[in-house]
């Protein structure tokens, strides 16, 4: 009974969701500006909830930083200038796509190196298995034996 009630409640809240969302007022009157704010926000990590960008996050700090992005865009700053501003304060980690640098080289190249290493090991393994001498020795001897038996030479001996 409780379960059914809970399910009904969930359903009810699900239906109620879109209705309240429609009442949310737009953040800015300028959709073009807002689009650029979001575009830059998508490049910046929210340090409070680290697997989200500040565009996705509802943390206080993310809202502050989005406002900061908006203000700086209004001041005519370029995207690069805004990203630099953030990196200066929060470090490279604030970039959702870390820049290619000596310190981040392992991050960028590492997976490909691992993949190459894995492929190399796999190829070597396969090749070695194909020309594995013991297998060939045995099977060749047994094949000979088998063909001898099949051809009936065995009987004549």
């Amino acid at each position, binding site marked *: 009974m409780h379960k059914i009630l809970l399910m009904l409640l969930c359903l009810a809240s699900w239906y109620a969701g879109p209705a309240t969302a429609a009442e949310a007022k737009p953040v800015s009157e300028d959709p073009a500006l807002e689009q650029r704010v979001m575009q830059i926000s998508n490049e910046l990590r929210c*340090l409070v909830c680290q697997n989200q960008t500040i565009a996705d996050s509802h943390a*206080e700090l993310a809202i*502050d930083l989005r406002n*900061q992005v908006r203000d700086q865009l209004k001041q005519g700053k370029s995207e690069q200038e805004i990203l630099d501003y953030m990196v*200066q*304060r*929060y*470090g*490279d*980690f604030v970039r959702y796509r870390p820049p290619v640098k000596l310190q981040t080289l392992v991050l960028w190249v590492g997976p490909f190196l691992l993949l190459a290493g894995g492929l190399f090991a796999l190829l070597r393994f396969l090749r070695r298995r194909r020309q594995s001498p013991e297998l060939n020795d045995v099977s060749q001897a047994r094949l000979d034996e088998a063909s001898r038996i099949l051809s009936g030479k065995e009987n004549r001996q």
Partner: protein
Amino acid sequence: MRRRQRSRLKGKIVARYLVPLGIFLVLVVFLGVGLGLNPRQVPSPLIDRPAPTFDLPQLHATDKRISPEALRGQVWLLNVWASWCVSCRQEHPVLVDLAKSGVVPIYGLNYKDQREEALRWLQQWGDPYKLSVMDPKGMTGIDYGVYGVPETYVIDKTGVIRYKQIGPLTPEILRDTILPLVKKLNA
């Protein structure tokens, strides 16, 4: 023939057991180190850089302002706090004790807070700060790269940030890291 077999056997053992074991051990080491890391402790780019400047009104005397330049010539702590911050409450006794010892002056950055609430909070739990400044919009917080209140900065005599603590101070961190650093910077 026997020797050949033996070396082949050895190669088999290496390939079948030792290589996976080696890979496994490397993974264990990586995961072990990873477990020990705290993902919330993001290294600050501000370490060994001049403390960002600000000019903010004081919490108690709002008509007076202060900037970090006025604190040159001494080693000091900047503690970012707020009355709404739960962990600040947790670290507060540590700060009060430190202030009592008089080893190093503590200045507070009251971050995104209401003045009345901040004052009430200090009255209730004690005021370890030489003085606190108000950053109601969190703009100075952004300049300092604050993302998890409380945070504490050790700033040297020339106004350079030497250490940043993210999260509450504990007696251990104070004893093992901050106090030795303050001593070194004061020497």
